[in-house]
């Protein structure tokens, strides 16, 4: 056995370990003070009014107006009232897509209107409205297709329950589509919304909030 040679040289102090610990602690402290490792919040979602344009990556959408219409009953009843949201949608994608339906359980293009909130004059949220049909009405025969490179006027329609006051305005949370969603199998995923963060159950990202005042009108199409 050899004993450490203690006597000869001057005793060295252990500097490296405490110094490293101090540096790490300082680094962590600075990081934590600046908000930790969480992603910096991106630009907050924009607030838009009528005519506002939202880039949804695969589509460019101009929100035009909202209005109520009364569709007379062809058999002489009282008819039905609808809340309409009109938007001009330009498809930037590479294939024909369908309009689908808006809202949290929405489909296809329509699901990018993440949340549709009708608001009454006193600020309360009226009873939910019923999504009806979404069409492109202006071409003689209505269509539900959004073709690449073309601009279409899309009307989202909600039936207003009988006896309910029409909302004063409609607030829309608008999302964007992921232009190249990751697919494990290479299978076609269709239209995929951009998510807020990378976690599995992350909610869709709101890129813009649009508020449209509701115009009262007579009979609709």
């Amino acid at each position, binding site marked *: 056995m050899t004993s450490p040679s203690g006597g000869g040289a001057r005793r060295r102090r252990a500097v490296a370990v405490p110094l490293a610990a101090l540096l790490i602690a300082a680094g962590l402290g600075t990081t934590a003070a600046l908000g930790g490792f969480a992603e910096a919040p991106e630009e907050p979602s924009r607030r838009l009014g009528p005519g506002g344009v939202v880039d949804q990556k695969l589509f460019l959408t101009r929100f035009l107006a909202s209005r109520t219409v009364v569709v007379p009953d062809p058999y002489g009843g009282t008819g039905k009232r609808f809340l309409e949201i009109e938007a001009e949608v330009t498809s930037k994608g590479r*294939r024909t897509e369908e309009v689908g339906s808006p809202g949290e359980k929405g489909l296809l293009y329509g699901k990018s209107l993440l949340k549709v909130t009708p608001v009454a004059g006193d600020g309360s949220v009226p009873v939910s409205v019923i999504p009806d049909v979404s069409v492109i009405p202006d071409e003689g025969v*209505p269509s539900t297709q959004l073709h690449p490179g*073309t601009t279409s006027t899309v009307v989202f329609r909600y039936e207003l329950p009988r006896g309910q006051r029409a909302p004063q305005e409609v607030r829309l949370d608008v999302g964007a589509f992921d232009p190249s969603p990751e697919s494990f199998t290479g299978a076609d995923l269709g239209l995929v919304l951009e998510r807020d963060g990378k976690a599995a159950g992350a909610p869709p990202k709101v890129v813009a909030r649009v508020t449209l005042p509701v115009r009262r009108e007579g009979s609709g199409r």
Partner: protein
Amino acid sequence: MSTVTPERAPAAAPPRPPRPPGRLRRAGALLAGLALAAAAVALQSAAPEPGERGAPLTSTGRVGDEVAASRFTARVEAVHAARSVEIADAAGAVETATTSGIFVVVEAAATAHREPQKFGRPVLLSGDGKRYTATDKVDSTLDIAYPYVQPGWWTEGVAVFDVPVTALTGSRIVLAPGGGGFIGEAYPPEAEIDLGLDDAGTQRLIAAAKDVHRLEARR
């Protein structure tokens, strides 16, 4: 008990130690190994990309050709352009569909080889690779995708597309059996027929575009 002693093999000469391989043989083995490794690497480049795996097997042709895919044969007979399409239904009511672009009316015919086939919605593939599904403004009973295509005779129908004028040049029409189930078929057959629209062809088609193209419902 008796033991059987196995017959002893005739005493052979002690095995000669193997001769060390010659220099030539060693070089040959090295070359063969390198060649095999190179071939293996080269073969990798022939493997289908993730996007190509299970992609349709496409048969191609031109207007007028009989384009044979594995389960059906299709033919494009004529291509028209129109600014609006008038659809008369069986009851005689008339609807007129208009567009901000142009309607392409493709007259097509098809026959099946062994079993009846039903096409999915026809697709117009533009020169720059964008896919336009046949328009839903036209009654689907007129569509080539509506009837079953039977073996033994040719079934005729149209495919009407609503496209911007810029999509015309270099465009092709794609006919494929409709996806029947939840799980898509791997390598389904597909016929891709070139509409023969080069720059001059596109100009001619637009110049000859009718204001109203009339389609009659069946029966």
